[in-house]
């Protein structure tokens, strides 16, 4: 590693330090130039692109976040409603029936609540595309439920920063912890003790004594996601014309 010696004793800094700056700044400016070109090109076809993809934008500010949540809750509510009509559910044991009864009710509560809060600002009812899910198969249903619940947690967490009204932040918090409870149970049903795991949480590994808190790698934080990353995943379960963008939540 380059070293910087006796800097206080001389006005001229050794070239070892200066050269990396020059090399990196060159790369940085080159990168910035390319990024600007990219923006320019993107700007040229921005309107065409959003029209041709027919994406429905959730909007901006608090209504944007609430519509974003409303969209994801619609997806979850529709999923669980369909689970309850499938062959897996009809043959599930009492515990699993209770889980899916509850999840269907909770997501319906979230959906209908958000629709009522948004009132005339609400986006339309979305058309889901669940063609990739086999509602007769336990594993397919559980894995889809895991995807939706984990995605919901990551989505609410990642959108909190865009909420302007404190009361709505608290509402989002009231919902996200319930989604996290769902996610953890579904994950435990698939594989016991996976309620937290490295795909959804930046697990912490102690580097010293396990009984000494705060010393190790990782953070124990949920891996939250940006609205745009969430919608890329959510759009795979939405029909053409119901797919979403969140261009103002960034």
């Amino acid at each position: 590693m380059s070293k910087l010696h006796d800097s206080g004793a001389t006005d001229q800094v050794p070239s070892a330090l200066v050269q990396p700056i020059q090399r990196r700044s060159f790369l940085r400016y080159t990168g910035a130039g390319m990024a600007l070109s990219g923006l320019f090109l993107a700007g040229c076809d921005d309107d065409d692109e959003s029209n041709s993809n027919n994406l429905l934008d959730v909007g901006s500010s608090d209504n944007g976040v609430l519509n974003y949540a409303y969209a994801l809750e619609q997806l979850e509510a529709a999923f669980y409603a369909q689970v309850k009509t499938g062959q897996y559910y009809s043959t599930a044991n009492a515990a699993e029936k209770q889980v899916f009864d509850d999840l269907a009710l909770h997501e319906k509560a979230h959906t209908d609540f958000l629709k009522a809060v948004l009132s005339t600002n609400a986006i339309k009812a979305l058309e889901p595309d669940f063609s990739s899910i086999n509602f007769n198969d336990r594993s397919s249903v559980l894995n889809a439920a895991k995807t939706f619940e984990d995605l919901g947690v990551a989505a609410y967490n990642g959108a909190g920063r865009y909420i302007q009204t404190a009361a709505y932040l608290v509402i989002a918090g009231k919902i996200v912890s319930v989604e996290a409870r769902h996610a953890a149970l579904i994950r435990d049903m698939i594989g016991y003790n996976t309620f937290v795991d490295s795909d959804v949480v930046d697990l912490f590994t102690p580097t010293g004594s396990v009984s000494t808190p705060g010393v190790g790698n990782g953070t124990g934080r949920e891996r939250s996601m940006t609205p745009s990353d969430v919608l890329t995943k959510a759009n795979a379960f939405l029909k053409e014309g119901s797919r979403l963008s969140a261009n103002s939540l960034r």
Partner: protein
Amino acid sequence: MDLFKIISDIEKVDPEIYERLDSRRRVFKHFGLAGKAVTGAMLPGLVSGLFQRAYGQTSALSPDIVAVLNLALSLEYLEFYFYDSGLNATGLIPNADRPAFEKIRNDESGHIKVLRGALGNAAIPDPTRAAFDYSGGRGRTVGPFAPALVNDYALFLGSSQAFVDTGVRAYKGGAPTLMPNKDLLQAALDIHSVEARHSSHVRTVRRGLAASQSGQAATTVAGDLNNLSGKTGRPKSWISGTDNGGPSPSTTPSTTPVYGPGNPATGAPTAIFFPAESNTMQAGIEISTLAGLNATAASEAFDEPLDPTTVKSIARNFVNELVAPTLFA
């Protein structure tokens, strides 16, 4: 001055120095010096600015943000030392459940690291294991939860549930205060949902134990709305109503306040208030009477926040007041 030697030395005690510095390659960008000649005379200021960025965020934190983060940190210590003590109690936690509690303990340790990093020199010192009396006797007497860390696994799970549900409510209550600082808000939200995942799992283990099922089989046991509370209750993985007071409603201290109202308990639709977990009205909209819904589902679908004073009054029951008179005071 040997800058890289300093950073390298710091790395030995703080492996994430480079992350704090925004990674090595961007260190120089942070100096704002691209394309300029660096002179020796500039260096002391540069180095000071570098570490100010990496470690010195605290100077900008308002007192109410510091208070929220330190309350969160105190709760994390309460949880960490509880789970760690449980894991160290021979024969208490069955082998099938040790991996889960090791994960939970380590998550709390990570949260402690995150909160310490956010608070910098404003963080409370580690209160250590000695600061806590998990019997609920406050260091003055042997309280009713003492067997939880000796040989009563059902009670250990009950205490775990009460601690983690208190934590979930506390983070939710603290979030609005963090709104001016988006990075700290993000960190708190990212911790909040992990705590809720912990609660869900602990509740699943409790249902299993109540039906003599462990490991994967615990997930085959349904919750029982007629038997939600008490040490051998079968709560759902989410909170139904007030869970009838939770794992230990009739002891002193009781777990009832964990699911009860805070202060203020009522307010206008756009106000911040702290109703009991049984609340069914959100933002002025009554959820229980929406088509197809009912009061149980309406309460389960939304967790409720708790105010700092109520959180402290719950946590204070598990502090050894003789050792840590100011913790949660």
